[in-house]
């Protein structure tokens, strides 16, 4: 006897112009099951789920809900068929309460606030969400906001829930709590799809795993019958080693010293509070924290892009015998103060800072220009005279294309048209080519496929071995723990703790991310 699936996709195809985003995808999910949809960036996961939630229409194929073929034309239709999607970027009104947000967009007059609040409370108790319906969204942490989104779709009667990368912004503890909730919903007979690319989460939560690769449906396997290595091979298409090296450098000398650094953000509120730490050459210092804990401001302060209210950042030149010494004008005094200097002035005194910012095309590169013009972004003034010299940047561009296997139609193709991985290789390549003594990178592998990610890790390790002080802001704690020598944890703009990479645990770092000093009830910032 054939069971009726909660939801079934039959040979779904979606094209955008010439690009086939989904090519003949088949999927089936029963009630009381959790399915992980696994695939690299650009493999078509989100496109597929957007067809279920009524944002796109499939070009070919059929969607069946409860055995009946349906046409989902709008998010409203999706709700009617009991499909609810929790997007990566929450769509909540900050000044409204949880209950008001949940009621938003519902028609009918019988939705007075008290009834809604009571119903929300009921849902919350049933699955153990523990949310307060009358709390304003701006007072909530990221994880609470996510909970509101989940309650919102449940309130609207969703039986099939789709979560798009729900753990990307959560700490390990919050992730565990989310997984408990998902298990409770599964026990209640809901069908759940979770989009992710974190393999250990796939193994922890799901019953089945469906894998997509470049829009093609590769297959569905039972989680019990597979392992991370096998899943990676399905995802990438060939065998890959998942180990990240942590070699030991020859020299380890003090490079940067941050003392009592305070910064104000755009709204005049403190974003960095009394930051103290040291960074060494020949070391990768990881910087962990919930998104928006001051990581961006910290790197930008060092780079001279963020004005400091008070405090010092001292720079110490590398040991004269090390590989990287003397590549530039040497800094003439130990403990060169960087606070109060612009990026241009920092360069002028001989501090060779490389910075790979989070916003690659909005800060690190000029999207509309080709590789050649991007290569000379920091060096265009180096030759005398009023004209730019495009010969050295052109040579550098060609060299990087070869060394890093950058795929581009040509050195003058606007870098905006390149894929995310290639854009990042252009940026990291340029920064490393400047033979830095300090290399700062923010989320260097975000959006990159596995091969490109490993290329970046390799490049960071190479720099470390040369004696460069590497500062790495990351979001994947597993990677930080494998790659970094030490990890600095930020929480609400403060240094919450510094742990040793080889010995620290994820739980330890997770705790520091939410509570200063890892204490029980510290200050908590969303």
């Amino acid at each position, binding site marked *: 006897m054939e069971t009726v699936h909660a939801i079934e996709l039959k040979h779904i195809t979606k094209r955008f*112009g010439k690009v086939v985003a989904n090519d003949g995808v088949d999927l089936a999910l029963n009630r009381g099951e959790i399915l992980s949809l696994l695939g690299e960036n650009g493999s078509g996961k989100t496109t597929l789920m957007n067809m279920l939630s009524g944002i796109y*229409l499939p070009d070919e194929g059929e969607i069946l809900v409860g055995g009946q073929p349906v046409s989902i034309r709008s998010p409203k239709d999706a709700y009617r068929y009991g499909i609810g999607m929790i997007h990566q970027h929450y769509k909540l009104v900050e000044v409204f309460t949880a209950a008001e947000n949940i009621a938003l967009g519902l028609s009918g007059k019988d939705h007075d606030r008290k009834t809604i609040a009571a119903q929300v409370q009921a849902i919350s108790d049933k699955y153990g969400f523990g949310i307060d319906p009358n709390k304003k969204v701006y007072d909530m942490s990221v994880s609470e906001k996510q909970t509101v989104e989940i309650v919102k779709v449940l309130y609207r009667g969703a039986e099939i829930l789709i979560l798009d990368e729900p753990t990307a912004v959560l700490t390990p503890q919050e992730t565990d709590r989310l997984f408990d909730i998902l298990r409770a919903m599964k026990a209640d007979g809901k069908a759940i799809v979770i989009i992710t690319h974190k393999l250990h989460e796939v193994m922890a939560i799901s019953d089945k795993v469906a894998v997509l690769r470049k829009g093609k449906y590769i297959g569905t396997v039972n989680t019990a019958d597979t392992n991370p290595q096998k899943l990676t091979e399905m995802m990438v298409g060939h065998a890959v080693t998942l180990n990240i090296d942590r070699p030991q450098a020859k020299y380890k000398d003090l490079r940067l010293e941050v003392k009592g650094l305070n910064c104000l953000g755009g709204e005049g509120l403190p974003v960095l509070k009394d930051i103290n730490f040291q960074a060494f050459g020949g070391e990768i210092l990881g910087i962990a924290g919930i998104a928006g804990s001051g990581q961006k401001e910290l790197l930008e302060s060092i780079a001279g892009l963020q004005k400091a209210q008070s405090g010092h950042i001292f720079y110490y030149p590398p040991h004269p015998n090390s590989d990287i010494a003397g590549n530039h004008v040497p800094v003439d005094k130990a403990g060169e103060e960087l606070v109060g200097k*612009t990026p241009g002035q920092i360069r002028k005194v001989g501090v060779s800072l490389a910075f790979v910012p989070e916003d690659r095309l*909005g800060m690190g590169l*000029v999207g509309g220009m080709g590789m050649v*013009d991007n290569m000379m972004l*920091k060096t*265009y003034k180096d030759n005398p005279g009023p*004209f*730019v010299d495009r010969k050295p940047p052109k040579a550098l561009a060609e060299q990087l294309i070869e060394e890093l296997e950058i795929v581009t139609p040509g050195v003058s193709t606007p870098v905006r048209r390149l894929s995310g991985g290639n854009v990042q290789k252009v940026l990291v390549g340029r920064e490393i080519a400047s033979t830095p003594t300090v290399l700062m990178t923010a989320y260097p592998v975000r959006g990159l496929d596995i091969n490109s990610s490993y290329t970046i890790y390799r490049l960071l390790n190479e720099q470390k071995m040369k004696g460069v002080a590497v500062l790495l802001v990351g979001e994947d704690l597993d990677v930080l723990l494998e790659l970094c020598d030490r990890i600095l944890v930020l929480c609400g703009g403060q240094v919450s703790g510094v742990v040793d990479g080889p010995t620290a645990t994820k739980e330890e770092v997770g705790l520091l991310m939410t509570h200063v000093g890892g204490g029980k009830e510290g200050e908590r910032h969303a």
Partner: protein
Amino acid sequence: MHDPHSPLIRLAKRDAMPRGQVWAIRGASFVAAFLISALIFLLMGHSPVEAYGTMISGSLGKPTAIRQTVRIAIPLLGTALAIAPCFKMRFWNIGAEGQITAGAVGASYFALFWADKLPGPALLVVMAIAGAICGGLWGLVPAFFKAKWGTNETLFTLMMNYIMIGVVKWLQGGPWEGRPGSQIIPQFDSAAVLPKVLGVHCGWIIVLIMTVAMFVYMKYTKQGYEIAVIGESENTARYAGMNVGRIIMRTMFLSGAMAGLVGFIVASGADNTLHSGVAAGVGFTAITVAWLAQLNPFAMIAISMLLGILEKGADTLQTRLEVPASISDIITGIFLFCMLGCEFFINYRLILRGGHKEVAKQ
């Protein structure tokens, strides 16, 4: 799967289009402008063939007609070149009108009060420099405020136009007034008038030199590179160590100075005097020229000539076929609309319900 509920027409951003197709669309938009204008002529009871013939012969038919067309094109080209670096920087300078006028005031001061003290060529050089400096300073004011306090440059530059035009009105009726009560500034001494080359004042040579200079400036100099980076992203510029505020002020001074030079050319070469209408809307029309040319200096030559032909042709229509002035304006408007509108079809495509067919017609 055909879905009756999808919208009738959808818009989608295109990838880069092949060059040939881009020019085909531009050609088609031109044809469309001709056809729509023909319809207007028919409605007004004129033969479109006759009307177009009149426009062509009136603007290009005789050497004198060509000279007049060129005279219209000169300030358009010069001003389009002046605002190009600002627009490349995404600094929306719509104050060229005021900067032209400021330049004309600076040049006129020397034309009126120094004509007898300086030898001919030196007088013209001093007038040109004064025009450039006055225009440049007038452009520097909004740039300074933008760089220091982040004021909105669009409104600021626009308002500056009216102030400068007001200043000229005051000069006309006050300190620089010629015959008392005339409200007119006297004609310049002949030494302060730009000499003619091939029958047109030599401003055309100046703007052609400016064209080449601007091309080189934007493409091959460090300053041109800085302007392009800031236009794409100020954050990137700061990241690269550029002093964004200083570059904005420097570029606006340059832009204003070029507009001021145009003011000198118009006052000295074309009008031989200063009056409050010296800019005559050129500062605004030049925005269209710069935009249509996509900030390419050489394309600006063609576009400003084209606008010259349209304006001179429309003038001839008025005198020869007695078409009302408003109709001439409408014809010019139709051409501009079609030319600007076709860029939309180059950047976007329309998708009709039930298919992925492109709508190629205009």
